[in-house]
């Protein structure tokens, strides 16, 4: 049946076992891709004709910023699924995303500041891109704070899901901020219509890093998801097997 996979995804014991089995298949490729991306970005890529070796911050800044948006989008979709279909596993996915997203948003802000100082002469500016990215960090922290403040998991799931869904309006604002307003931040150079504006030797390591970070996110999500699924299951018999095994 076409829908059985969806129903199986709603079954906690199935999700727990599947997550455990899949984790290494994402974690190890992530490690390899990131290692290759670092080698390519730090050693093989030629210095930029304007920014010299300073541009190499790109290889940690862009993947962190990509994570900050991709993780939030995943979290909002999972939260919406949880709200609409009252699916516990979807809420568990959303809750797993938040700390991952928050930490990479922090990394994006810090690496951005470290890139801004030598290139623009300032660590921080209340610029549309930077301000909206900072708002994203507060959204993640607000989501986590809200969850921590509500004892009952079901109520915490629903309240925080609402916040996650409403907050998703910030994602396109961040992405298009550099096009809509005058920003210090440069316009997108990879995710744009037409060809990326970068030579292949610079672009390839960036793509490796972006893919590596994405796989790392999936691996981290799968590990956290198991914990969140366990926390939502009270007296289920399958837990006995998991815990003693």
């Amino acid at each position, binding site marked *: 049946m076409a829908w059985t996979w969806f129903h199986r995804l709603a079954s906690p014991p199935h999700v727990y076992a599947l997550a455990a089995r899949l984790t290494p298949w994402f974690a190890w490729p992530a490690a390899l891709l990131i290692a290759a991306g670092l080698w390519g970005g730090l050693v093989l890529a030629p210095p930029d004709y304007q920014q010299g*070796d300073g541009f190499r911050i790109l290889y940690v800044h862009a993947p*962190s910023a990509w994570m900050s948006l991709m993780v939030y989008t995943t979290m909002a979709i999972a939260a919406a699924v949880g709200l609409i279909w009252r699916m516990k596993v979807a809420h568990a996915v959303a809750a797993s995303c938040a700390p*991952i997203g928050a930490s990479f948003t922090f990394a994006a802000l810090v690496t951005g500041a470290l890139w801004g100082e030598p290139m623009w002469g300032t660590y921080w500016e209340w610029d549309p891109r930077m301000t909206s990215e900072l708002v994203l960090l507060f959204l993640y922290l607000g989501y986590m704070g809200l969850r921590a403040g509500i004892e009952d998991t079901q109520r915490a799931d629903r309240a925080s899901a609402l916040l996650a869904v409403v907050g998703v309006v910030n994602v396109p604002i961040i992405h298009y901020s550099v096009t809509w307003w005058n920003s210090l931040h440069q316009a997108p150079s990879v995710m744009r219509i037409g060809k990326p504006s970068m030579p292949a030797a610079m672009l390839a390591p960036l793509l490796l890093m972006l893919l590596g970070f994405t796989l790392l996110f999936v691996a981290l999500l799968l590990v956290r998801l198991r914990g969140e699924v*366990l926390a939502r299951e009270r007296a289920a018999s399958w837990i006995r097997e*998991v815990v003693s095994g």
Partner: protein
Amino acid sequence: MRAFFDMGGYAAFVWPAYAVTLVVVVLNIVWARRALARSLAEARRRLQMQGEAR
């Protein structure tokens, strides 16, 4: 090798940026594993309490 670590004069910005990202990646791995271990311990404790109540 010196040139590599010097990063064309941008060492003071490039290396801290990489260090911060590395720390975030490593902490994520540690935190995720710790969160799972905590949930497992919690579930074990719950099962034990149920066993004693019976």
